[in-house]
């Protein structure tokens, strides 16, 4: 794929995008994308061939009458597809094998992903073995194999980061393991791919890939990104939110972990771009209309001053 014809380059330009399977950024997605281009050109040739024969058959003057129909059907209907499919089956199985979470010499980094209506929670461990819980953003190092252990809390979801590798379902009662590897640092979009109810469309997440050397530091920063406990909003938060939300990455909770919320790019599983305090406040005021059906209870009992204090408090979590 290094030297592209101008036409192909143009085609590829239309194929990029934050969720594009054709713009791979890891070996899993790259092998599938390569497979796609092979299949695309082969299938196009076959399709054009079949249509050309059908149109040719409609011409009045032609020499098709002497055709040995038995051989034609046996050759093109059996021998040809068997040959093509045999090659494809072998390539398919080998490609699939290459994407499995096989034990390797370097050992894969273990992270956990849990899907629930309608957000993703992630748990991983720092070098000291301490847990780091995040929501909506998964932090991994570049160039290293990562095994995502996928579970579901309520209904079936599916974990999909198209630029890195294929999807794998999160199924209640089961744990599935997906092998990921990102070639370079960056931000890769992910989303839920299995219909999971009302807000299936608003269940995005991001995989944030750090340079290999900076990964542990990033985890440590996350663990430290607690909001300021002396802030006046802390009391409001403790009274109204802390029952479900932890604001400390070391603690898990029933609702998304809010440590480092101020640094996140989005709020509410992709519902809102996070542009600072105003975005958090907007969410606190209007989440019921922004993301109807979400499990977050109504904030009608809180006055606007309390909501502002909570937003300010969460804004300190960076």
């Amino acid at each position, binding site marked *: 794929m290094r030297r592209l014809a101008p036409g192909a380059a143009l085609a590829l330009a239309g194929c990029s995008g934050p969720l594009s399977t054709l713009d791979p950024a890891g070996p899993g997605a790259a092998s599938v994308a390569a497979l796609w281009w092979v299949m695309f050109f082969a299938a196009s040739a076959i399709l054009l061939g079949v249509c050309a024969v059908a149109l040719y058959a409609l011409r009045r003057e032609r020499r098709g009458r002497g055709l040995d*129909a*038995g051989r034609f059907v046996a050759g093109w209907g059996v021998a040809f597809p*068997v040959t093509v499919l045999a090659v494809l*089956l*072998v390539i398919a*199985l*080998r490609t*699939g*094998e290459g994407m*499995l*979470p*096989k034990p390797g010499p370097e050992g894969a980094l273990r992270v956990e992903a849990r899907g629930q209506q309608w957000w993703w929670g992630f748990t991983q461990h720092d070098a000291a073995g301490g847990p780091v819980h995040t929501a909506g953003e998964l932090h991994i190092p570049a160039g290293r194999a990562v095994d995502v252990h996928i579970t579901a809390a309520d209904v079936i979801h599916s974990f999909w980061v198209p630029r890195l590798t294929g999807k794998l379902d999160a199924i209640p009662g089961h744990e599935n393991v997906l092998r990921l590897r990102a070639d370079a640092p960056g931000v890769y979009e992910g989303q839920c791919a299995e219909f999971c109810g009302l807000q299936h469309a608003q269940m995005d997440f991001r995989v944030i890939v750090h340079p290999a050397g900076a990964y542990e530091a990033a985890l440590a920063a996350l663990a430290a990104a607690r909001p300021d406990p002396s802030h006046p909003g802390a009391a409001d938060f403790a009274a109204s939110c802390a029952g479900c939300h932890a604001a400390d990455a070391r603690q898990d909770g029933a609702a998304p972990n809010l440590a480092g919320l101020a640094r996140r790019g989005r709020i509410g599983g992709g519902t809102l771009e996070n542009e600072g305090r105003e975005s958090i406040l907007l969410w606190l005021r209007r989440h019921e209309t922004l993301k109807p059906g979400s499990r977050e209870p109504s904030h009608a009992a809180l006055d606007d001053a309390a909501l502002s204090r909570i937003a300010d408090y969460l804004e300190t979590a960076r």
Partner: protein
Amino acid sequence: MTGLDRLPGVVVATLAFILWSLAFGLLYVAVSLGCAWGWDRPAWMGLSLQRWVLLGVWAVHLAVLGALLARSWRGTRWGDAEASFRPVLATGGLGLALAATVWCGLPVLLASDCL
């Protein structure tokens, strides 16, 4: 042998594909049971018990279908006429079922045990 010759072609083809279904179903069941019960550890000659079971299931069905096909093959008149209907369905059905059994068993040789 004579029994097979007396059956209508479509019945022979159906029986042939029932054998394919058996092979296919048993391969799938063997994988599920084997992975649930830990047959995937290396056991004998570098292959796991799982792999041996799969190879065995596959081989038995291939052998039966192969033997039936060999018996049916002689004297088959291929063609599109009414007279060729029975032989095409009987021999063709056995041939296709055998091919499908070979084909669908290929992952036994190409894929890993329980990942």
